[in-house]
């Protein structure tokens, strides 16, 4: 119950940020030289249509009034209309968002599966061969272009080995899972180095604590000390690092979806950019920002759940 209150409070404090996001998105379209209405209509821009849209959006009114209209429509879930696809932006997003969410979850799961054992191993056997090799990973991993990694993985596992499908999302749950593995691993390969570095550092710090000695003095197994005591503590700060980076990495869904032909919002955004379907670009940009805000909130909640010292008040 305390968590619900905590979340609500956080949401309230996020209102200025949400407003700011909407402001930026609002101004995005006005960066484009020319008439915003014409831009929105794209190839469907006829003088009549332009005039109608201008009326609808209130483009003849002062800027602040336009913004309020915009905000009003947003709150009602109206993200605009895609003249290119001839459907509302909201429905476009509605069909593609789930795919992106699958991708993000797969990415996080793969990251944890890859990074945690490596980080724990490196910290527990500090200074050893394993540690030195694992420490080199973040160095190499920093410069990995996500899309290139994706292409390489497709080449090896999809085209040469035929283990997984190389494109699309499939139509059934098992197909979804098969299709999302490689993209998930792709994301993980760029996210894991950061998590490894941070978790390893936390583990090393925690392993030097007195309570670890207390635990060892109880005579319990080393594995239990490392996993049950050290990891539980080290994970706390790493959760924050992971959360921040997931938020940043939601942007990489753009290219990952493109490379793997996954019909998510990233792919949709690029298609819309290439077809100059601006309302959709605007809408998806907004959704991305909201996604990031939600991920950050989830990170904070998870952090509070893991660490009893955090005051939820």
């Amino acid at each position: 119950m305390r968590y619900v209150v905590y979340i609500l409070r956080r949401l309230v404090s996020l209102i200025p940020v949400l407003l700011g996001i909407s402001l930026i998105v609002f101004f995005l379209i006005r960066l484009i030289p020319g008439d915003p209405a014409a831009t929105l209509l794209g190839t469907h821009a006829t003088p009549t249509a332009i005039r109608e849209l201008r009326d609808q959006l209130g483009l003849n009114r002062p800027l602040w009034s336009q913004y309020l209209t915009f905000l009003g429509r947003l709150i009602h879930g109206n993200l605009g209309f895609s003249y290119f696809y001839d459907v509302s932006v909201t429905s476009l997003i509605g069909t593609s968002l789930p795919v992106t969410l699958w991708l993000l979850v797969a990415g996080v799961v793969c990251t944890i599966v890859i990074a945690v054992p490596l980080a724990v191993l490196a910290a527990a056997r500090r200074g050893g061969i394993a540690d030195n090799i694992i420490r080199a990973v973040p160095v190499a991993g920093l410069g990995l272009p996500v899309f290139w990694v994706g292409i390489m993985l497709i080449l090896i596992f999809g085209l040469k080995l035929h283990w997984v499908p190389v494109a699309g999302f499939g139509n059934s749950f098992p197909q979804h899972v098969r299709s999302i593995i490689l993209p998930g691993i792709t994301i993980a390969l760029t996210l894991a180095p950061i998590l490894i570095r941070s978790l390893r550092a936390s583990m090393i710090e925690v392993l030097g604590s007195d309570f670890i000695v207390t635990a060892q003095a109880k005579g319990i197994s080393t594995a239990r000390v490392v996993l049950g005591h050290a990891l539980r503590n080290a994970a706390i700060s790493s959760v924050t690092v992971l959360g921040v980076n997931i938020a940043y990495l939601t942007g990489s869904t753009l290219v990952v979806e493109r490379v793997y032909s996954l019909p998510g919002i990233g792919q949709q955004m690029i298609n819309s950019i290439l077809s100059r379907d601006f309302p959709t670009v605007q809408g998806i940009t907004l959704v991305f920002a909201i996604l990031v805000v939600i991920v950050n909130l989830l990170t904070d909640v998870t952090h509070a759940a893991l660490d009893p010292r955090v005051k939820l008040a």
Partner: protein
Amino acid sequence: MTAPLLEVHDLNVDIPMPHARLHAVRGISLSIGGGEAVGLVGESGSGKSLTLRALLGLLPRPARIASGTILIDGQDVTGLPAHRLRHLLTDTMSMVFQDSLTALNPVMRVGDQIAEGPRRKLGRSRAAAHATAVELMAKVGIPDPERRYAHYPHELSGGMRQRICIAIALSTEPRLILADEPTTALDVTIQARVLDVLGRLRREEHVGLLLVSHDLAVVGQTCSRLYVMYAGKVVESGQLVDLVTEPRHPYTFSLLRSVPDPDRRVDRLLSIPGQPPDLSTTVVGCSFAPRCPFVVDACREREPELLDIGGRDSACLRIDTAEHWTDMVAAEGVR
């Protein structure tokens, strides 16, 4: 006569550092019988904490045991591989640390931390371990233990936390508790209570106690026998009563004089002038010589051996003058 519970012969602990090698514990020997309360006194840097850690096989990196033997119940355990050694040592002994806040896992309930030993090491069921934990908490004097079980360390006061640490130390059914400055971080009234708990446990559970402290008052309240350490060596040992009434080493003597005694009128508080020696160098002669009020030239040439002077040991060349030390110091004025 049965072998003493714990025997240590000529223990040496080294700390290899990038710029030097610290010889932190220099050949000390101890012996503790079952149910005995023994104190290990010395300044910080005297090597007393490291000695305790070495006994459990839990020296912090990069410190290591350079040489020496440890015997449990007369059995030499030093040669055993690290894993088995630690297993055996933790069977017999457990430890209480100075800082109870850092000694406890911040994200685990205190009750669970006490129950972990019985559950994992002694193999009890979850319910049985829970019950044991509550029982132990009551034994160490924590009121309302059932409710306190679910608390986290940061939610408890210092005195309570230290008692939890003692409960944890008891949870693996040790025969000897190693306590490293257990009351230093507490204020005086709480200190008394915690010491009380330790004393009671010793009498009721027949658990031995090796208490490390720099505070003579603490040691005086709980222990019957004493080892005094200086610069990594034992310089005097014996029955508490003897050491306190008739110290036979200048260091012990100076320590006693620096404790304010409300019954004795003094013009000023004395402290021992000077600094403990740098442990990375080998000292020629007695390590205490630079600060000793009774030093003579011979002290700087030869290192005094720890000799048995009739039921107690001392490492000093000037033992024969010991009866006159009080007068010597008074005559010289402030020293």
